[in-house]
């Protein structure tokens, strides 16, 4: 004789998911990270074809060329060198105060006087 408990379990009522349940899961899952993250299977070609990556590469190249072309920035590469730092300070100072380096403009009278003293060849 069959156990009535077996019958009870085998004929137990089962509930069905409400139609909204999947819609709710789908809506919330779409906002979760795994569905927005890049696929690990994406090819290298796809990855490098991104415009942002291309621009990033271009900027890096431009920065490298700029460093080679303008040696004034090189002292930054060796901050431990006092001599290099001092040279850089002088260069920077002259760049910031060009008037100090500019020769004075002498008037004609002064030039004639200096020439008479033999100080300059006129």
């Amino acid at each position, binding site marked *: 004789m069959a156990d*009535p*408990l*077996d019958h*009870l*379990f*085998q004929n*137990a*009522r*089962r*509930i*069905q*998911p*409400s139609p909204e*349940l*999947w819609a*709710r*899961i*789908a809506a*919330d*899952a*779409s906002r*979760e*990270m*795994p*569905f*927005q*993250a*890049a*696929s*690990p*299977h994406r090819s290298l070609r796809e990855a490098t074809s991104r415009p942002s990556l291309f621009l990033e590469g271009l900027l890096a190249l431009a920065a490298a060329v700029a460093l080679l072309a303008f040696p004034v920035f090189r002292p930054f590469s060796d901050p431990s060198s006092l001599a290099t730092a001092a040279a850089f300070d002088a260069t920077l100072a002259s760049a910031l105060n060009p008037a100090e380096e500019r020769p004075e403009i002498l008037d004609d009278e002064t030039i004639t006087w200096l020439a008479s003293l033999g100080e300059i060849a006129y």
Partner: protein
Amino acid sequence: MSMLLSSLLSAVDTNPKDALPAASSALSPLEKQALERIRGGDLQGLKTLYDMHALNLLNQSWRILQNRAAAEDSVHDLFLKLPEALKGFRGESSLRTWLFRAMHNHCLNLLSIESNRRALLRRELPSEEPLSQEPMASTALENHDLLQRALDYLEPDTRSLLWLKEAEGLSLKELVAIFEEPEGTLKARLSRAREKLRFILAKEFDHG
């Protein structure tokens, strides 16, 4: 709550290599395809797993929590965390067993949280009418179900064990993977639970 579920799911089955099983026999071809699609960020992969397993998981949860709305919420939470949690699935058991285990742990935690919340409310509102001792308020649907009313008398963990064995037809080996108890212990628990249920049905429901 979702953080808790995440930790539960990660505790179910962890894989240090953080990868899906390469060619696990524990996965059906359809499940394997679905997992690959999920990894690729395709929501349709999740829908495939939902169509395959949601009904069974919902009923397992319903029998443990004894509340339809709470059961649907638990399925929602589980599927929402599934894409991340599946990275830890090693394929040592079938995906169905792995999901039953995750749902079992999730439901017991929900009941524990609910129980703590009720205990806190009872302490904070001593003059109020005592709250129901039931884990979650039952609806008319649950009250009309004879089995559900009988299962009410059992502990949630035992309800889950009985349901998975008797209604879902899980093998003892699968139950060992879910409950992490020796086969002999589970056999004894099942036998005692059946006896108790038989007694409850005879005592409480034979007279109407």
